[in-house]
């Protein structure tokens, strides 16, 4: 054993704390000095003051978004770490640390779509005063793509061949394939820029040990981490080197975690102890009652999440054994569903549903009726399917009568010995079971019998190949869940319903096409979209694909689901965002 005296050795952590303490002190003295010397300009530029309290009922476990895919960590880190471009509340991409978004037109994206060039805005500084350069972006790419790092955001860096610095402030990203939508790396809160100087020893296997770096990352954002208590609370201070000296409006920011959604809503809306509460998955009635106290406002926004019914086009009959819910045959389904293969039945099922009832009962401000599986961004939303907005039981009955489905003595429609009796499955969740009960009753009115089934979410979404109850195996007639996509580009999402994506035995049910719906025409549109860069054309293709799915009732969309948060009436500037961090514009928040 070697004993050394204290003043020669400090543990790494101790040393770091010391440096950080000194840094904080020097920030403070800088601030005070600034206030004293500027005097006059202080009255022009409002200096940060007061405290802003955020309440997230799940506490963040780290400040490094590359080591966690959880929304809570992404949200917390977004006030410190920033990407080159991000999304505003309407889903528009806006330049953040760059002057403009590179496109083919302005020469930022190469004609063959294999490279994109970003130019960092002049004078962007990290909170320690050093400059943000292309090297930091290159390092972030290398850090996340190092297989030993265990980075959760690697899909944001997929197909990248190399990232180069053309000069100190210019980053060129080269792809191995043509990328019609090259805005993934360094865009949005999933892939912000890390500081190379801080993290250079933390890439690869060492990522696990760099807890000081992971808890106290240095970024370009409006706040700096002052104290991090894992899974509990984070205290931030205003960044003295923030690019806009008049922002942020708050000197300290407290990010408290833990508890549950109901009491989080109460702390903002009823007691007013907190200024902002995130993700309030609370029954609409309770929330509306709390809002009456008048201390805060409920805000909601909508991303791409749609709760929908998946219609099984193949026969799930247990008697088929191995061939249950299997698509047999090339372009012609030789194992069709006994009654859902009939277009008239699918259309009637959709027409009979009163979607507004489902929204009012289970979602409130967190939902609105949807007739598309691609409801957003607004530019992609089709209006061709609005028939579904108004339920029409009489019309549904007429369609079924016309198609020859006659009501039997038990009130259930049948044809050639086939009864319309539906097994309808979903995951266990009180809102979903409520929706199931409503839909069962709505379908009863058109002579359709429904058997309800719910499966624990961990099994249903678990993807265990050995289990017959997964949503991929789909051993039922109808199943319900929410699907969504990250970012704003629907290309990958829309390719989910091509023939090769069908979840089948041969691909171990690894596909995304749950309805087993197959159309050569649709496949062609999907292939075309993969090589189209022009936005108008992409919009046209995406709408066309959405309309095909909707008008053939491959899926029956129900509810466009949103995010709900609440903020105190004394806070202004909140622009609720489902495309990026809810705290994306926290630098603009103010206390009235």
């Amino acid at each position, binding site marked *: *054993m070697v004993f050394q005296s204290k003043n020669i050795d400090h543990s790494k952590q101790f040393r770091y704390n010391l440096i950080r303490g000194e840094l904080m002190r020097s920030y403070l003295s800088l601030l005070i000095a600034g206030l004293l010397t500027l005097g006059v300009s202080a009255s022009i530029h409002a200096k940060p003051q007061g405290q802003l309290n955020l309440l997230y009922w799940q506490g963040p476990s780290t400040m490094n978004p590359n080591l966690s895919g959880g929304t809570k960590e992404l949200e917390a880190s977004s006030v410190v770490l920033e990407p080159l471009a991000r999304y505003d509340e309407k889903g528009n991409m806006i330049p953040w640390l760059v002057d403009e978004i590179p496109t083919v037109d302005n020469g930022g994206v190469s004609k063959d779509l294999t490279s994109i060039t970003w130019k960092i805005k002049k004078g962007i500084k990290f909170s320690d005063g050093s400059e943000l350069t292309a090297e930091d972006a290159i390092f972030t790419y290398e850090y996340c793509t190092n297989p*030993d790092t265990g980075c959760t955001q690697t899909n944001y860096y997929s197909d990248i061949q190399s990232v180069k610095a053309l000069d100190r402030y210019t980053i060129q990203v080269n792809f191995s394939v043509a990328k019609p939508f090259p805005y993934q790396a360094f865009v949005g809160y999933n892939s912000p820029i890390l500081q190379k100087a801080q993290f250079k020893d933390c890439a690869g296997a060492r990522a696990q040990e760099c807890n000081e770096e992971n808890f106290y990352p240095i970024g370009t954002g409006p706040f700096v981490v002052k104290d991090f208590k*894992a899974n*509990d609370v984070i205290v931030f201070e205003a960044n003295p080197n923030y690019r806009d000296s008049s922002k942020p409006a708050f000197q300290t920011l407290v990010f408290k975690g833990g*508890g549950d959604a109901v009491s989080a809503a109460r702390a903002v809306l009823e007691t007013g102890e*907190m200024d902002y509460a995130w993700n309030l998955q609370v029954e609409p009635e309770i929330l509306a009652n709390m809002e009456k106290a008048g201390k805060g406002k409920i805000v909601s926004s909508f991303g791409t999440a749609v709760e929908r019914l998946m219609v099984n086009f193949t026969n799930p009959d247990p008697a088929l054994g191995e061939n249950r819910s299997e698509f047999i045959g090339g372009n012609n389904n030789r194992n069709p569903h006994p009654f859902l293969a009939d277009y008239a039945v699918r259309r009637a099922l959709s027409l009979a549903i009163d979607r507004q009832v489902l929204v009012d009962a289970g979602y409130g401000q967190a939902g609105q009726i949807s007739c598309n599986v691609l409801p957003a961004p607004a530019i992609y939303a089709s209006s061709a399917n609005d028939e579904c907005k108004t339920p029409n039981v009489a019309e549904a009955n007429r369609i079924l009568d016309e198609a020859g489905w006659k009501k039997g003595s038990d009130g259930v429609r049948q044809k050639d010995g086939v009864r319309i009796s539906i097994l309808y499955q979903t995951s266990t969740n009180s809102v979903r079971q409520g929706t199931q009960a409503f839909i069962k009753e709505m379908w009863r009115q058109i002579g359709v019998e429904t058997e309800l089934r719910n499966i624990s979410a961990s099994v249903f979404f678990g993807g265990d190949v050995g289990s017959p109850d997964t949503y991929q195996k789909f051993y039922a007639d109808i199943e319900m869940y929410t699907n969504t996509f990250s970012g704003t580009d629907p290309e990958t999402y829309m390719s989910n319903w091509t023939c090769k994506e069908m979840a089948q035995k041969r691909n171990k049910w690894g596909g995304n096409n749950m309805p087993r719906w197959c159309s050569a025409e649709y496949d062609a549109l999907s292939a075309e979209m993969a090589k189209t860069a022009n936005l108008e054309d992409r919009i046209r293709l995406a709408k066309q694909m959405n309309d095909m799915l909707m008008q053939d009732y491959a899926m029956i969309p129900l509810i466009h689901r949103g995010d709900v948060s609440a903020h105190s009436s004394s806070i202004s500037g909140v622009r609720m965002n489902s495309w990026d961090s809810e705290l994306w514009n926290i630098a603009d928040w103010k206390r009235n």
Partner: protein
Amino acid sequence: MIHFIIRRILIAIPTLLAISFIIFAILDFAPNDPTGNLPMTVPPEVREKIRQSLGLDQPMHIRFGMWLHQFFVNEPLNALDKVFGIKIGDAEDRTRVISWATRSPVVDLIIERTPQTLWVVGLSYLFGILIAIPIGIISAYKQYSMFDQIGTFVAMVGFSVPTFFTGMVAIIIFSVQLEWFPMIYDTTLVVDSWNHFVKQVKQMIMPVTVLALYNASQLSRFMRASILDNLNLDYVRTARAKGRSENVVLLIHVLRNSLIPVVTLIALGIPTIFSGAIITEQIFRVNGLGQLLVIAIEGADIPLVQTLTFIFAVLIVAFNLVADVVYGILDPRIRYD
């Protein structure tokens, strides 16, 4: 006595090793996945890489051996380094038990949260005892009196109504309606002035009261039953026949004898202070050990769950020993040698 204690400690070592292995095996067999909470958009290959980076691709016996080494060798050495500011061996290369969710040393997380748990849960335990013993004594001595009836009623309510309900009611009455106390425990508060001290007391009142009520109702029933058992015994009659005053009979003769089972109960309950009051901590957002354990289980943070559960096991074994020793002190008839 010393021999007894040493013998018990030696027996405890294999017991604890076996416990640690059982905990490890159970956690390993559990269908938990640290990547299970990631969003659906993260592809399976990425998940596999994350699992590898956490060391999950190693066989179980190797992972268990590593944990043993890290926990029993590296962590104590590291603690020594910190306390004395020295460097024993190769300090930089010593791997510590790392939490999967936070990627920081598990022991640091536990140390960060222990004070809050000790303050809130410990105080409520202390208050619980201070309330329960007098209530138990009076209830037993004046059996079936008004005091006994009310005491029994309150104890039954406190015992049968769960803390998540009483906690909720307390929040609605005292935070929402009366606005006396904050409903969110401010864990960043540093008590350095009178104002902050008042704030700290205010935020501790609700969680401590809710838990103290629960603890007191359990203990007061035990105290009452134990005193009742003793009151009818021969030695009490003898004491009274000797002409001792009722106070002496009750508070010296009866109380000392009745305390034996109650003290065991109190000693065995002390480890539960450390394990925190899981539900109460969650309701009031106290960042204690109970909350840490719940978060770790939800996130499948195996190293953290393993270490916490093992520490609880150590405490339980230790306080069993303490209870036995206190027995010997309270009752001179008990001899261990």
